[in-house]
């Protein structure tokens, strides 16, 4: 998941807590092993090395691809799981290393959901294209873990994978889980807002430390897959509360993709949100 993963629960029973932890960690590793684009031999690797050949995928992968297709439509093409290869050009390390415009154009030829053929269960990518489920995989894993613990125990639990989280109920003696929104420039400091989460998902998009700066212009790390360049005017971070972590995470990402209109978008969707600019 590329971040610390934790499960918080409130129980006096050590063995049931350990059992929950085993279930959750097994599921986290399963999702990671199956979909991480950094691991060889899994379904993602199989698709990304298919070199134009059609790959037949299992149900779970098919569900994720269907979901990615929906998001592509909802975002007018801005949410695109084939855009990951743009990341090879952009290294958001705070430097001024802006990629060459021609390089961006040539990589863009291999980007675009509309360039692949998805007719469940068969997926065909053009040679050179790749998919990356990283933009939704962590939220998906959080909700999977949340569903598993909810089926296992009545006790309120909080699943937290690097700041994307879901709660299945309150701790025994508290009104809710207290979740602080951190200052994106300084992970050790709270931005002041503490959210009391009883049930549902909370996810944050944005990492103010990942940027490039050249000629006085700051380039945030959210890329527009239709241009290959970073989206301008996004908030430093967007936190959304929704029924599930997946919905919260996708709404936060969609808001980031709206750039300066992020808050308007979230207001319109009538979801609870906290934007830092």
């Amino acid at each position, binding site marked *: 998941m590329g971040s610390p993963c934790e499960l918080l629960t409130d129980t006096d029973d050590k063995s049931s807590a350990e059992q929950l932890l085993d279930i959750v960690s097994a599921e986290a590793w399963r999702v990671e092993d199956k979909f991480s684009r950094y691991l060889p031999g899994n379904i993602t690797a199989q698709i990304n090395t298919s070199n134009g050949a059609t790959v037949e995928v299992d149900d779970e992968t098919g569900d994720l691809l269907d979901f990615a297709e*929906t998001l592509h439509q909802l975002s007018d093409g801005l949410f695109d799981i084939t855009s990951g290869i743009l990341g090879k050009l952009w290294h958001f390390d705070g430097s001024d290393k802006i990629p060459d415009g021609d390089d961006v154009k040539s990589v863009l030829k291999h980007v675009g959901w509309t360039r692949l053929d998805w007719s469940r269960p068969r997926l065909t990518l053009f040679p050179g294209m790749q998919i990356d489920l990283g933009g939704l995989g962590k939220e998906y894993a959080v909700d999977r873990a949340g569903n598993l613990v909810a089926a296992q125990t009545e006790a309120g639990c909080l699943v937290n994978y690097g700041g994307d989280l879901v709660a299945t109920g309150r701790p025994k003696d508290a009104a809710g889980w207290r979740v602080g929104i951190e200052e994106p420039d300084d992970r050790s400091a709270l931005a002041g807002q503490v959210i009391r989460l009883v049930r549902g998902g909370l996810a944050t998009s944005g990492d103010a430390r990942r940027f490039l700066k050249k000629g006085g212009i700051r380039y945030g790390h959210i890329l527009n897959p239709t241009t290959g360049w970073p989206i301008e005017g996004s908030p430093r971070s967007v936190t959304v509360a929704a*029924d*599930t972590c*997946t*919905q919260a995470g996708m709404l936060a990402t969609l808001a980031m993709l709206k750039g300066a209109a992020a808050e308007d978008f979230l207001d319109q969707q009538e979801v609870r949100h906290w934007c830092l600019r």
Partner: protein
Amino acid sequence: MREKKGKSIAATLATATCSLLGNTVSEPVQAQEEPGWDFNTALLFYDEADDRVQDISLNFLAVRTFDDDRSLSLGLTIDTLTGPTPTGAIPFDSAQTFTRASGLSTYTTAAEQIPLDDTFLDDRFAISASWQQPLGRLFTINAGLTGSSEYDYTHIGANVSLSRDFNKRNTTASIGLAIAQDDMDTEGGAPIPLSEMLEVGNLTNKMGDQSKDVFDVVLGVTQVINRNFLVKLNYSFSDSSGYLNDPYKFLSVVDPLTGDPVAVLPGPGPGPSHLNRYENRPDSRTKHSLYGQAKYYMNGKVLDASYRFMTDDWGIDSHTVDLHYRWPIGDTSYLEPHFRFYTQSEADFYRVSLLDDGLPLPSYASADYRLGEFDAITVGLKYGWTLASGNEMSARLEFYSQDGDAPRNQLIGNQLSRDPYPDLEAIIAQFSFRFGH
């Protein structure tokens, strides 16, 4: 849910998520901003040089936030003021005796000293309460009450303000109204304007209790220029009416040639050694001010610069420039130098003294140094740090220097060699602690 076009993305996403996760029923999210108390406490110590006024002030502000951005603020301030303050009378080369405002005793100022009233001793309690809440999506309303009480002075006030966000919340316009009524219950009664200071026990120059009304309007615009830059512009109008005199201030009555205070014949009991008359100000005052502020954020550093121009119908124009620069030190602390410059012209009726020339008295006259022409500079440094608990502390030390001149064309005879304007230097130290719950 699809019929609601604006929400269709969230609704479609909810359906897609249900089929992805296989959730048949997904329970609605329960998340809210943690309601809680935020406390801000400060202890302020103000000390004027030459053993003049000292003020120890304890400030306490509690803010309770509720769901949906509603909040309640409660404030309490307790002040203890001690020390003498200039009366308006001029220094002289022999001792001068004055009757206290109460009319019950006298005090004496040594030769060449600026006369100070040493009875200045007061405790002040001030409370405030305000409620803020959004009205719809773009409006915020704030309404509050204020009150304060001290030995001889009572204040009550009410205020309300409304703000609206525009332009993707980058612009906020606001209007605020405030009304207040202040009642003065001077010991022995407020002096009759321009009346002579009388001997101890003679209260025939006293009136009953007095009051004034104050009405304020503030119009403001705050504009976010970009993520690093914010500007604010305010216009404010203030109208005071009623008793606007300071019942403790008076003027020396002087010989029109020598400029020396005129001696009075000693009576059988204690009383003033020289002729003095209580001040009189117009019974209304209208102020207009323009205020501009710019805040610029640079990688954690913050430059906060502001300028205020004020003009009133008493003839006072003032300019204030205020600069703060916040300089982070590490992740959890900062240094903040502060510089402020203030300058004002004198009120039309500011007088160093009144002349004993047999001519009618002016309608209005005051020798209050705060109505004279002066410049003031404040320089200070604040150090703030955040504790591991997230609570914040800060310590501030400032130096204030006020430097004024009596108008040359008003100085007569011997007054030219005695500086009648009481300059002022003060040290301000503040320690504050902010904690949440």
